[in-house]
């Protein structure tokens, strides 16, 4: 597939065939030269054929082959004439990341790390089929779907300031629980407050480096500070919402006369009843995910207090931010000089709103929205900030993580004969996990180099670096 260099960090897939707009991939020249993800590039071109797409079908430097839409993809559609697609959001609706800081420094917890990792592993349900510590009645589940993070805080899981420092304040108001299937509700009732499996994790880290002192201070981050980073989503409820919607839309799309290059791109016009129905269901799942991460943070707070024998005030585990990286949003953007309402799909991509944007919570409005970019479990994670360039170039979006480079099968093959746990502990990282093959499948070598991904979005001007975190203990599902 032809890739045309537009700038040192932006490449174009020129329009051809039934593409309505070109493709645009943000990456370094090194990444472009080593680009093996031809399937992902083809997926970018496929997305460009969908009705109502604006400017370009985009991909971030952590992109890889997904199903239908690529992972690391961003696509904005005109609200009046465009489509919405469950495949452009993904199965794990509002899969996202939450970061909290503490008052502690690494030296204070090093001697207790073994106890801490064991206690976290015990208190935070993880792994395949794990069920939560919160039992939901049918009535309460409806409230979770409508209210998201606020519901959890009202139940005593956290502080109002957590919700304040959450994307959309932890609630998409378009949620309508009446469109959620029995199957999705049944799965949701038993999994609230669970981490999940696969690439989901809870990581205790340390602020390793500060790149932008004033912004780091605004985010409440300082050097050597102990942090907690969570990666989880809407669990079975979200998967079921996506699956139900895809099954419906696969049939529905045939009535629209749209030729799809891939069945997984099934979609509906945003303004149609089918489109609105999916958007309302997706919003419910997004709210469930925010309530879930709110409970997980609460469990982490309890566990730290218990192991360290200190109170909440001394621990001061304050939320830095919580964001989603699998979502579709109704947003306002300037397209070709005209202000338009658009539906931005971010599948494995993060919102990156600039300083001054009204959607950025008040505490951070001067410096821009925090962006949380987890790397693999042996390397580093980054805290970045949104920029005006992102608003102009990528519908206010940036990357979401390192992105896989090895398939799970290939990772397991490479891990044969190695002790990943030992390799990590030699680097000072303790890890606890549930699934037999989780550690091999999720080993550091399975992911792209996070530093390269971050350098590429920085080079493209989509975000600026604020701080880097180094993992010291990791819980995996």
């Amino acid at each position, binding site marked *: 597939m032809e890739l045309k260099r537009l700038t040192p960090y932006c490449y174009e897939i020129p329009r051809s065939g039934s593409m309505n707009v070109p493709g645009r991939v943000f990456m370094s020249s090194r990444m472009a030269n080593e680009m093996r*993800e031809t399937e992902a590039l083809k997926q970018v071109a496929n997305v460009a054929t969908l009705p109502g797409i604006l400017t370009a079908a985009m991909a971030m430097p952590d992109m*890889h*082959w*997904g*199903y*239908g839409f690529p*992972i690391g993809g961003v696509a904005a559609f005109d609200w009046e004439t465009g489509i919405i697609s469950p495949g452009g959001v993904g*199965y*794990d609706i509002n899969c996202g990341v939450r970061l909290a800081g503490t008052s502690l420094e690494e030296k204070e917890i090093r001697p207790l790390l073994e106890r801490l990792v064991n206690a976290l592993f015990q208190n935070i349900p993880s*792994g*395949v*089929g794990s069920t939560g510590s919160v039992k939901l009645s049918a009535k309460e589940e409806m409230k979770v779907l409508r209210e998201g993070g606020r519901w959890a805080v009202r139940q005593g899981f956290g502080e109002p300031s957590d919700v304040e420092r959450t994307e959309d304040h932890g609630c998409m108001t378009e949620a309508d629980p009446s469109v959620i299937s029995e*199957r999705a509700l*049944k*799965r949701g009732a038993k999994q609230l407050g669970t981490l*999940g*499996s*696969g690439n989901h994790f809870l990581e205790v880290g340390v602020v390793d480096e500060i790149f932008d002192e004033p912004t780091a201070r605004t985010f409440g981050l300082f050097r050597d500070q102990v942090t907690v980073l969570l990666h989880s989503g809407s669990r*079975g409820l979200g*998967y*079921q919402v*996506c*699956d139900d919607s*895809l*099954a419906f839309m*696969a*049939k529905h799309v045939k009535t629209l006369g749209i030729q799809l290059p*891939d*069945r*997984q791109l*099934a979609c509906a016009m945003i303004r149609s009843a089918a489109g609105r129905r999916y958007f309302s269901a997706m919003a419910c799942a997004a709210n469930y995910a925010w309530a879930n991460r709110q409970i997980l943070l609460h469990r982490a707070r309890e566990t730290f207090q218990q192991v360290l024998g200190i109170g909440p005030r001394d621990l001061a585990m304050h939320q830095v931010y919580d964001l989603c990286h699998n979502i579709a949003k109704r947003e306002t953007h300037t397209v070709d000089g005209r202000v338009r309402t658009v539906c931005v799909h971010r599948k494995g991509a993060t919102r990156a709103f600039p300083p001054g944007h009204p959607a950025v919570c008040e505490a951070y409005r001067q410096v821009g929205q925090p962006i949380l970019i987890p790397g693999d479990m042996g390397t580093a994670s980054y805290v970045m900030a949104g920029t005006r360039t992102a608003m102009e170039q990528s519908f206010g979006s940036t990357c979401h993580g390192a992105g*896989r*480079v*090895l*398939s*799970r*099968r*290939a990772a397991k093959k490479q891990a044969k004969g190695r002790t990943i746990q030992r390799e990590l502990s030699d680097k000072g990282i303790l890890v606890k996990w*549930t*699934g*037999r*093959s989780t550690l091999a499948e999720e080993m550091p070598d399975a992911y792209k180099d996070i530093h390269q991904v971050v350098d590429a979005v920085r080079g493209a001007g989509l975000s600026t670096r604020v701080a880097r975190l180094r993992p010291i203990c990791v819980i995996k*599902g």
Partner: protein
Amino acid sequence: MANHYTQLDHTADLRIRVTGSDISDLFKNAGLALFDLIAKSDRLESHEVIEVAATGDDPADLMVNFLRELLYLWTGDEKLVSMIHIMQLSNTAVSARVTTDRYAPERHEMLHEIKAVTYHQIDVRRARKGWEAIIVFDV
């Protein structure tokens, strides 16, 4: 059972190739492959026989919908499928009798959290010998 399917490379998900002597056998083997990926059973204790039915526009759509129904037995009801008997099968409808085992941590080791059966690259076709299917599971 395990030799009726192989795992193929796919960066983010689980992609498998399943084979069967005929299309009925293919549907049965695809269902068993799904549960082989979900859990490892030490000891089978058959508990309950359930009838499962699905419809689809063509064999590929039917395969996805059939596996969706089977997957929900696990994700919704915590039942693991140990045996499948295809009762009726056409290009657009399937019904099967499946033997299930209730999940018990002491007997089952969980291997993968399969989020969904996807349409991505779905293919059900006649092969040189018998039938084969390519299926991508989201994990």
